């Protein structure tokens, strides 16, 4: 049995987000949604994290940052793109400095659309990410 699904530790990175999705991510930790019920801890350290939550689109300046954070995480790891900006660039997709969604830089496993993404949707996205995490763990064993 894999215990990844019982204790997913999340690293939250704010790309060029408007802060709308960020406060919704943090709202998941509040007493109303209380994701710690499912063992979720919001860690600040990529070495400890299992799930990388990225909000906001990726621009030229934060490409190396996002890549570095991803490389510092230990396998198995998954990436969840939260909000429409992270999934496709949203209304900023045509800006001269934007490269669009996170998928252009990292392999994204789960997309959570919405502007801003609601806490329920974010929790649902994380739960879907757990299935992917489980698959990756099983693949690691072989």
């Amino acid at each position: 049995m894999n215990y990844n699904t019982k204790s997913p530790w999340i690293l939250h990175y704010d790309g060029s987000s408007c802060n709308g999705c960020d406060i919704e991510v943090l709202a998941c930790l509040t007493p109303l949604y209380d994701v710690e019920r499912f063992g979720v801890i919001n860690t600040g350290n990529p070495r400890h994290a299992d799930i990388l939550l990225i909000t906001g689109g990726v621009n030229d300046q934060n490409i190396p940052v996002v890549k570095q954070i991803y490389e510092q995480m230990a396998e198995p790891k998954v990436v969840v793109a939260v909000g429409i900006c992270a999934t496709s660039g949203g209304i900023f997709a045509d800006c001269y400095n934007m490269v669009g969604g996170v998928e252009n830089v990292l392999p994204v496993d789960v997309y959570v659309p919405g502007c801003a993404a609601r806490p329920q949707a974010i929790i649902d996205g994380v739960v879907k990410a757990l299935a992917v995490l489980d698959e990756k763990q099983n693949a690691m064993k072989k």
Partner: protein
Amino acid sequence: MLAIWIIRIILIVVLTPIVGGLLAGFDRIISARVQGRKGPPLLQPFYDVLKLIKKENIEVNKTYKFYVYASLFFIILTAVIMLMGGDMLLAIFVLTLGAIFFAFGGYASQSPYSIIGAERELLQMMAYEPMVLITAAGLYMVSKSFFISDMISQAVPAIVYLPAVFVGFVYILTFKLRKSPFDLSLGHHAHQELVQGISTEYSGRELAIIEITHWYESIIALAFVYVFFATSNPISHVFAVLACLVVYFFEILVDNSTVRVKWQLALKSAWIVTGVVSVVNLMIVSFFKF
């Protein structure tokens, strides 16, 4: 006789982290209830550790992992010495050795965050070590022995003679249990600006070892509390366990109702409390009783 000793040692090595992990689970549930949340399941700390064991092991350099295992070894040794009723001074020195190896691990992993964490760990040790030694000295003055088995077989519990020393020990227990306001070196929950202090560069199995070491440490810290209450009367052991639980609950409440302080205040306040309570209490004990 030897077989009984070996069985006891094996039981201590196996059961201590299980009880420590359950305590950590209770801690997280009670912390969540204090904050108006439901909280994780009781076995959550075990799930975390089992997950970490299976994760990938990232190597930062060749040496830094050794210190975590050395730290665990000495902490287990401390637990065995204390719970077998051995020499308290020996236990304290071995405990210090374990903590020093842990700080070495922080230095060896070379990350700026972990070096800050290691320096803060050393500052914490400066803050709490005098009080730990004075606790042992006070218990020696009451029982005329450094052996824990003698200390817990007195007619009168040590707390009667050493109430102020007990208060001082509970004060520095906050350092040992890594709880707010004195969790300077290694925060457990989402302390972003520290990025988890010493454990910054540790991932996978070594992080699980750090967690297990902490379970042993919490039981060792509560064993000190236990010694204050236990006497030759068997019923007193029930009270001693209850006292440990009350003290642990108190520490959880303090953890949830305070924020982290600067190291200057942590060091000064620990030394002031140590100086005042230990000097007054030890003077009174030496003047009136012995």
